[in-house]
């Protein structure tokens, strides 16, 4: 009941004409960047971070959340029509979606993706509404030791468990933590890793790292892969209205996808690849038309993973808002936006900033409705965006990267740093390192250090406090199982 009243208050905030406009701007921009290959929500929100100096926090987060949700919708359009996933989360959609488009059912594929995204996005937002207060109650019991152990668990899951290699994931994570440590140590005032450069005293800016990895690194990677620009866009054919049979084949996968996606997204592990693949294999197994999978394209294989993708995107916001724990690159950058306002996400946020939190959650419901309209009747518009030639697209991305970076302090040093990180990002892409752990480590690393030092101060320097308190010990044990479990399993099977 309390939750419903709070949500009502949130709608009063989100429905103000100004905030509706921010939501519309965010969802439109989000869909556009989701459609465009090479641009993602993490990069876009990083480029827009300076807006936090201009507008109140509620407006900024409604905008960012709109971009985040919109990118999930837009990514499916690219996967279906171009077979080049616009977002990593929509790789699975491309499997069946593009086959459907090639057999003349692009309209139905787009429709089931958009409506499934709407259903799952709404289920996921309902999940946030009712799960968040529960997590908050639980999290209020956390002390510094528990927070530190929780962050260790998140570090392990985002870098070692979800990627293709624990070694490369952890290497990316430690690199990010190191970047986060550069600058003045806030507790002792000592400079760390500044190499005598005054520019580094304030630390490495997260904009530089995100833009370097996701814009410069990505551009170099695409250029190096001998980009020929011959991607074939499947023409939009077939009615956007689904037949009765298509509805019947879609609604169960939507709900199953949402049921798979939200819990996995809400765990302090995040990631949308696992739930989308899980949903895909579930639908393939349950389908009455298994012969369509991989041949002409099965609608269940689009409906389920798309729903799982959107529900897990919503789930990621739960640990982010309630614990201040980002489990994806986009969430990490949103966390740095909170820091820019001097707000600490976490259980206290729901008490200290109810208008902001509940306004944001309410705006997610509105964003889903806007996105359904933006993505179904207006899909033709987004198909046109897909036709922007690659040379102009990537050259334009680098111009935006310049604005975002050079605007920080008008220093060419930042541009040099941007390009160095871009080269690192290129090598990481080329040699199959995940990039999200870098951003997560950079944002979460200093917070983990802070909690660690707090815990040590309380315990008077006794490290054992991490394993003698039951909750902290449990979290660390889970982290150890997540890290070592797969290795032990492999050895045991041999």
């Amino acid at each position, binding site marked *: 009941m309390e939750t419903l009243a709070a949500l009502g208050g949130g709608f009063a905030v989100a429905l103000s004409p100004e905030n509706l406009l921010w939501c519309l701007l965010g969802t439109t921009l989000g869909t556009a960047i989701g459609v465009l290959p090479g641009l993602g929500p993490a990069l876009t929100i990083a480029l827009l971070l300076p807006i936090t100096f201009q507008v109140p926090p509620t407006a900024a987060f409604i905008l960012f959340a709109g971009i985040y949700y919109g990118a999930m919708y837009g990514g499916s359009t690219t996967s279906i029509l171009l077979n080049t996933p616009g977002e990593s989360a929509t790789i699975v959609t491309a499997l069946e979606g593009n086959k459907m488009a090639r057999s003349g059912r692009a309209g139905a594929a787009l429709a089931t993706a958009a409506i499934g995204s709407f259903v799952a996005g709404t289920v996921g937002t309902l999940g946030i509404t009712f799960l968040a207060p529960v997590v908050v109650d639980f999290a209020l019991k956390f002390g510094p030791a528990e927070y530190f152990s929780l962050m260790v668990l998140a570090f392990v899951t985002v870098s070692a468990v979800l990627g293709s290699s624990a070694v490369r994931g952890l290497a990316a994570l430690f690199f990010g933590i190191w970047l986060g440590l550069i600058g003045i140590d806030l507790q002792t005032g000592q400079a760390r890793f500044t190499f005598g450069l005054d520019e580094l005293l304030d630390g490495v800016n997260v904009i530089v790292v995100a833009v370097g990895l996701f814009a410069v690194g990505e551009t170099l990677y695409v250029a190096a892969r001998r980009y020929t620009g011959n991607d074939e866009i499947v023409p939009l054919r077939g009615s956007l209205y689904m037949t009765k049979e298509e509805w019947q084949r879609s609604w169960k996968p939507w709900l199953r996808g949402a049921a798979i996606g939200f819990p996995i997204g809400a765990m302090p592990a995040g990631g949308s690849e696992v739930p989308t693949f899980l949903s895909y294999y579930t639908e393939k197994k349950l389908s009455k038309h298994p012969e369509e999978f991989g041949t002409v394209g099965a609608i269940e294989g689009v409906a389920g993973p798309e729903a799982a993708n959107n529900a897990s995107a919503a789930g990621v916001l739960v640990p982010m808002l309630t614990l201040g724990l980002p489990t994806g690159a986009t969430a990490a950058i949103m966390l740095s936006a909170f820091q820019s306002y001097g707000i600490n996400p976490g259980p206290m946020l729901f008490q200290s900033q109810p208008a902001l939190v509940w306004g944001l959650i309410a705006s997610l419901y509105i964003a889903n409705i806007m996105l359904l309209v933006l993505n179904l009747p207006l899909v033709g518009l987004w198909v046109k965006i897909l036709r922007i030639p690659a040379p102009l697209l990537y050259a334009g991305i680098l111009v935006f990267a*310049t604005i*975002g970076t050079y605007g920080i302090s008008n220093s060419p040093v930042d541009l040099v740093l941007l390009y160095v990180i871009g080269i690192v990002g290129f090598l990481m892409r080329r040699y199959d390192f995940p990039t999200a752990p870098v951003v997560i480590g950079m944002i979460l690393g200093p917070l983990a250090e802070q909690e660690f030092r707090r815990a040590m101060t309380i315990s008077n320097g006794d490290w054992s406090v991490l394993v003698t308190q039951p909750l902290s010990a449990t979290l660390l044990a889970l982290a150890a199982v997540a890290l070592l479990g797969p290795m032990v399993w492999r050895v045991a099977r041999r």
Partner: protein
Amino acid sequence: MTKPPSTGPAWPETLIGLGLLGVAALVWWQTGEIRTSPMYAKVGPRIFPYLTAIGLGAMAVAMVVAGLRGGWQPEEEREVPTDWRAVFFVGAGLLANVLLIVPAGFTLASVVMFVLVAHGFGSRQPLRDAAIALVFALSAYFGFAKALGVNIGAGVIEKLLGG
């Protein structure tokens, strides 16, 4: 666990591992340079950096070993030839941008970068690209940057237009 027949060391992966080992050594060495005060002796500003250096070093060693054993890149990725010409032009565009942005201003630097990058990606209409770049950079300057309240270096062109 069956390993594919050994193909000999994969040098790019080994080099990446060695490079990361260098970074770990750098982090270790620089951590020793952080000054600590006896007041904070228990949990000073060095502990996390040391842990980070150890983590980086351990992963680097694992990568060097994996590299010497044949690397981790899948066969099809290894067979994609690198388009050095494209990388060269994109790199040249980035370099031109850094060198020009202070003396010539954002718009001019962006146009030069845009044309070079577009060329790297296979566009063969430099004049058309320059025209698009000019319109794009100016609208980005007066729209995006001004709306965000970001101050980016005004050069000749921006001043002429009253930026």
